[in-house]
């Protein structure tokens, strides 16, 4: 490690109206290392990096590059200082080619005319050097997410970035793509570049980083070298108290299959087959996790079971009742509870209050009707009980749901769905975008429901969640189940199955 850090940020403060996004933050980076910025959603990680990249101006604080004080007022000046940034959301022009995206904003060797041939050549060179193969002539919208990520990295390398910021680069990648990315990144640090890595996936942070700085509510709340850090220690630094990453699961005697799916075939929104010959049983008292990169038919599977989408062929039964192509009310009557993946879109009505949202599925039950009209006293009592029981943090029962945090909305939906005694519970991406504390609570409730003899189907892209919750794991790829495995399987094997490799091939490596 060199003596002078390539980057020092001292006392950075950045305010937005009503929000202190960065509060007196110190951060540094040496050439040849990966320094991770870890924190929950909204902790201020992206803001700090946007200050460094010249997209925001800090209200207070100073920055030094290789010991020299600098002010970076725009991305142009960041690029001039050899800083590159891979943004949390791709910064690519979909309708342009790979070469055009790379060439944007650069000086052309042909003056006013583009020099895409020369640019393409260099893209191919960089690609073979860093394992980032890509066709420079491809139009960006045709690329898979992993390939788009490559274009982003090539853009930075092309501009000779020595300091590279990677803001949640793995969020949309498969485990294989993550491995590939990490290889590239390791090669970059070996070449003497410094990397700032942002993620909230703890095992990735541990695998890649040399040092870790933790942000919470805009402030630095923890710092550690990777040596000696564990997932649990990092999680408690992020949350500010001890957290259980995987819930304690008591032994439960599994019962009969409460959800039975045979030969299911479903047509997607674009008229293509999204689920093709799918068989699946979930027994009472077990949690079956469905692992897979999203977009492989998981959403359609949940929707079809819930009666929100028609099956072309096959059958679905819940607790012995055939509910194939039934209406949502009939499926619920058979004992289905459903936590959909889009909290705001499908799971709740943002403008309705907490109490109203809790009532959404029960509004016809006799308990809440008084001569055909809603009985508000009974509703309030019922709502208050649920809010207390599920620890939903809300100012009042009359607060519109959209002003709650993601974690609290999710708890609210769970409270509503579990208020009956469901035979089957489907939870789609139950903790996506939810803070660790709320995720811990949601996991605890799911496990508790398992002890109540409910058959639970958890659909998640988060392998930690799948491993932590499931009794059995089904891997879904292109509308089929690639195999059903137990939790002794390795992450690598699951990753391969998520990419379409069968169990046998995966085990053979």
């Amino acid at each position: 490690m060199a003596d002078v850090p390539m980057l020092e940020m001292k006392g950075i403060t950045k305010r937005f109206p009503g929000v202190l996004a960065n509060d007196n933050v110190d951060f540094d980076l040496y050439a040849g290392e990966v320094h991770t910025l870890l924190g929950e959603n909204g902790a201020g990680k992206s803001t700090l990096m946007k200050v460094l990249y010249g997209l925001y101006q800090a209200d207070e604080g100073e920055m030094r590059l290789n010991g020299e004080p600098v002010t970076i007022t725009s991305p142009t000046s960041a690029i001039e200082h050899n800083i590159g940034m891979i943004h949390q959301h791709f910064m690519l022009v979909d309708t342009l080619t790979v070469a055009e995206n790379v060439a944007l904003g650069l000086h052309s060797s042909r003056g006013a005319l583009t020099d895409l041939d020369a640019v393409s050549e260099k893209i191919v060179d960089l690609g073979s050097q860093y394992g980032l193969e890509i066709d420079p002539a491809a139009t960006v919208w045709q690329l898979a997410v992993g390939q788009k990520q490559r274009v982003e990295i090539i853009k930075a390398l092309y501009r000779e970035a020595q300091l590279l910021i990677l803001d949640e680069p793995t969020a949309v990648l498969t485990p294989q793509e993550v491995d590939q990315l990490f290889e590239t990144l390791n090669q970059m640090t070996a070449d003497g570049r410094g990397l700032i890595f942002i993620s909230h996936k703890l095992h990735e942070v541990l695998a890649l980083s040399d040092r870790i700085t933790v942000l919470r509510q805009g402030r630095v709340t923890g710092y550690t070298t990777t040596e000696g850090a564990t997932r649990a220690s990092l999680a408690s630094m992020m949350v500010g108290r001890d957290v259980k990453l995987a819930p304690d699961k008591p032994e439960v005697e599994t019962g009969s299959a409460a959800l039975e799916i045979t030969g299911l075939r479903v047509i997607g929104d674009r008229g293509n087959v999204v689920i093709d010959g799918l068989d699946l049983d979930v027994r009472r008292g077990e949690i079956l996790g469905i692992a897979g990169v999203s977009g492989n038919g998981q959403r359609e599977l949940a929707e079809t079971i819930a009666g929100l989408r028609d099956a072309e062929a096959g059958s679905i039964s819940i607790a012995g009742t055939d509910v194939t192509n039934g209406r949502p009310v009939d499926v619920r009557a058979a004992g289905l509870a459903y936590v959909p993946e889009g909290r705001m879109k499908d799971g709740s009505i943002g403008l309705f209050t907490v109490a109203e949202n809790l009532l959404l599925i029960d509004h016809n039950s006799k308990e809440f009707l008084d001569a055909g009209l809603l009985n508000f006293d009974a509703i309030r009592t019922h709502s208050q009980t649920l809010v207390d029981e599920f620890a939903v943090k809300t100012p009042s029962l009359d607060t519109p749901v959209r002003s709650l945090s993601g974690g609290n909305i999710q708890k609210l939906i769970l409270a509503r769905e579990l208020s009956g005694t469901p035979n089957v519970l489907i939870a789609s991406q139950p903790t996506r975008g939810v803070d660790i504390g709320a995720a811990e609570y949601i996991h605890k409730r799911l496990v508790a429901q398992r002890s109540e003899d409910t058959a639970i189907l958890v659909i998640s892209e988060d392998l930690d969640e799948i491993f932590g919750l499931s009794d059995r794991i089904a891997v879904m790829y292109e509308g089929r189940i690639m195999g059903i495995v137990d939790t002794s399987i390795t992450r690598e094997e699951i990753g391969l199955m998520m990419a379409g490799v069968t169990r046998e091939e995966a085990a053979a490596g």
Partner: protein
Amino acid sequence: MSDFFTEAVLIATVAGGIRLAVPLLLAALGETFGQRSGVLNLGVDGIMLLGAFTGYYTVLKTGNVWYGLLAGIAIGIVLGLASSLISVTLQAEQGISGIGVYLFGLGMSDLLFQRLVGTPVPITKFPKIDIPGLSDIPWLGGMFFSHSVVVYLAFLSVPVAMFIINKTNFGMNIRAVGENPEAADSLGVSVSRVRYATVTIGGTLAGAAGAALAIDLGIFQQNLTNAQGFIAIALVYFGAWRPLGVMAGALLYGFVNSLVLQFKTLGIIPQSWSDIAAMAPAIITILALVIVARRFRAPSALTKPFTRGT
């Protein structure tokens, strides 16, 4: 109807269609630049009207049609810069602010005309240039190679626009800024500089289109353009934001217009129908637009002002 299928009438109809397409083509090409970069300028017709009056008045005073064309271009540059200021710097709602520019151009061109001229006096028109060799070809020569310089220039600007948009850095920046300004900005492309340039190109060509129209007709009157600036905006959609498509649309409009005029002159369309007939070009163009335009996607950032960091 048999009157129509004579050499002279057919040649006149085609040549007339090409002539009538010119102001639309110029204005729509200019608007294409703005829209490709994400700015919708609804003020085109107003700029055309002021360009038309300025061009007309300059020719009236100097007797030189080229000074007239240049004057139209100059006023177009000024109004293009003003439009950029409104939509890029001040970030006004583009669906509304352009209407303001239109109303300003409509009112101002008429006011100036009443104050400075009063009764319409005809002016010199553009001279016709027969292209040596080509203009003697039977039929085709008369249709395509016996026009004023402005007509040739207007059609020449189509490949020029294609070249600029597809082959130059400026064009690449335009496409990037219209599709994903954040991405362009993060690579150091100045979104506002690109948009100022394109909207000003749009103003320039609209001013030229207006002057070309007035000097082609040799006259000015209130609302001379008769909403051609709005048709031009529709043509940009019709042409799917591509110069060739825009040219096809302008020619379609020009030919339908020319045909209607010819039919009226020959009495094929009764005089009592002339009002309805006058609407035909606009209706046909808009119908074609509805059918064609749905298949293409507008630039993603169209009508969206850009601020860094939101």
